[in-house]
């Protein structure tokens, strides 16, 4: 869980320093709510399975340089046979250059997860800002924002991502930008409809009556209220971003010198591994993607069920 409050110092009555664990009433209530959500999330079997799995994968990805030193994947220094089926020394076999596929899988996790998280941050930030603005402002501004959102919702995102990355040139940063810029529209729609719901509540009217500014209403009331749903949505977006990364890398838009699950599959395709029957090169990267994306999806759905009680028992 993250800290959802965006309080600015000086704007609230801050408690005297030195009293540990205390805060304003709102902050305290939010902390309480986070603990509650966590308690309920823990009781979801599928959600916890997903979470444990993700933590394991992230740990492996972080430890990759320790577990599989980079030299062992240097094509100029290895002497293992090429396209070797799984053996004890190389449990997942070797690729057409003789590299251990298990080792590449661990290194690939780093790029795939990095792109997944980074693209999600880009996407969620754009989506949240656009969504809140489209829900908060009225008239002309709203009309224009809605058209832009609907445009990005409808336009084929993969084709747009291909156009963007082909013009910017291949690379990891390109893929992050291309995914982020093309995938924020559904988040924006979600945030907008939440913003409309929140802003129709009486406490917002009270806030207006007390002379609150747009900034105050958006950052202090709307943002904390839409945050939980954005979090659930974010979890799913990471999953789709990982799929999108693999797709773009597969189409040749990634950096050819970095190993990601997508670039491994591209290499498998280019070297004819699928038609040649080298299943040990085709299966592992794909299974890794499916498992990680599924884990993100399960966590997101379980989290949504916790914060949206009307979905219970479904």
């Amino acid at each position, binding site marked *: 869980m993250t800290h959802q409050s965006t309080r600015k110092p000086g704007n609230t009555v801050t408690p005297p320093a030195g009293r540990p664990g205390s805060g304003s009433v709102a902050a305290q209530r939010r902390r309480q709510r986070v603990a509650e959500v966590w308690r309920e999330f823990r009781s979801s079997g599928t959600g916890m399975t997903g979470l444990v799995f993700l933590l394991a994968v992230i740990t492996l990805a972080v430890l990759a340089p320790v577990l599989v030193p980079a030299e062992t994947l240097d094509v100029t220094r290895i002497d293992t046979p090429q396209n070797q089926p799984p053996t004890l020394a190389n449990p997942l076999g070797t690729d057409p250059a003789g590299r251990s596929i298990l080792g590449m899988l661990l290194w690939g996790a780093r790029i795939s997860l990095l792109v997944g998280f980074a693209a999600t941050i880009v996407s969620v930030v754009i989506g949240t800002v656009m969504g809140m603005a489209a829900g908060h402002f009225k008239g002309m501004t709203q009309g224009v924002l809605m058209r832009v959102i609907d445009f990005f919702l409808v336009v084929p995102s993969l*084709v747009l991502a291909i156009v963007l990355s082909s*013009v910017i040139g291949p690379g990891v940063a390109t893929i992050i930008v291309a995914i982020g810029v093309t995938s924020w529209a559904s988040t924006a729609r979600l945030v907008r409809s939440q913003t409309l719901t929140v802003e129709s509540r009486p406490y917002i009217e009270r806030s207006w009556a007390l002379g609150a500014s747009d900034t105050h209403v958006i950052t202090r009331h709307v943002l904390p209220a839409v945050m939980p749903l954005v979090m659930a949505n974010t979890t799913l977006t990471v999953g789709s971003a990982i*799929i999108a990364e693999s797709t773009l890398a597969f189409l040749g838009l990634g950096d050819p010198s970095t190993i990601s699950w*997508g670039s491994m599959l591209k290499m498998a395709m280019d070297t004819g591994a699928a*038609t040649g029957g080298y299943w040990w090169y085709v299966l592992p990267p794909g299974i890794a993607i499916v498992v990680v994306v599924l884990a993100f999806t399960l966590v997101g759905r379980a989290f*949504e069920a916790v914060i949206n009680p009307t979905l219970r028992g479904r």
Partner: protein
Amino acid sequence: MSGVLSSEIEAVTDHDEPAKGMSWLRYAGRKAGGAGISLIMVVILGFFAFRILPGDPVRSMSDGRRVSAEQMEILRSQLGLDQPLLVQFWTYLTNLLTGDLGYSYTYNQPVVQLIGDRMGATLLLTGSAAVISVLLGLWLGQKAAWRRNSLFDKLQTGLALVFWSVPTFWLGLLLLLLFGGTLRWFPTGGMVTAGSSLTGPAYIWDVAMHMVLPVLTMVAVVYAQYLLVMRASLLEEMTSDYLTTARAKGLKEDLVRRRHAVPNALLPTVTLIFLTLGGLVGGAVTVETVFSWPGLGYLTFQALSAPDFPVLQGTFVVFSSIVILMNFLADLLYRVLDPRLRTS
């Protein structure tokens, strides 16, 4: 791309405009206006993406090759890149209106002709896949919702979530590995057997055999989303009072589902199906690439590897326009399907 959160489905399929009581003409006009603006945005983006973004088309085209400065100058003037941006934009617009999408320098053919030649193959592939996955997804989705928390429901939802997490191209590779490589049941690529001159039923059979694996790949990835949407929206309906009324009338459970619950649950689903058409196009690019299916998606991939920017720009404009037009049709269809919007 995403769309397996119930709240997300609600937000996206939300028709919150004051469409109620609006006359048919005004409604259609309004939606046409929206689609028109989107089309204009596609046209503008299609132009400026290739000119304003960092990166020089001429440099990318000659990437890795030794090209003299004069040669690059000649290429620039051939592509009209030495003209002021607004002049280029005007040429692009007037050409577009006369159906000229530029000239491909890798194929030495007008882009329009290239796209026209490949349109049929893509429509055949995505059309078949769309129809099959909509029928399959809706049918399984309503069954799963009606018997929620049963073994059938858990199995179907679980399977759908797994398929939703699978990268389309990888599933294609797997099928290629299994049925094309190892078992040799189906051809591994193309639309017809190379070098054959089949006609009549033999030709149709040949194409059908080539279609099996690509269609299967697309259906597997796409149907899952329809299943989840249908399930979620039917569950939403199942708490409604009118179902109790229907049961109180003595209707059989089966009729309550088919006549009362399902038609209402279909409404948000229709919107979402059309909204996911963009995803279907994305699927076409990867599936056609894996199976070398001679359609627009494969053309996009080849243009990308060249790189051939006029072709890429053309496929972007055409793909996006198709999806926008389909969404406009969906909006009109929605009005026909939802009687609440018709009453004035």
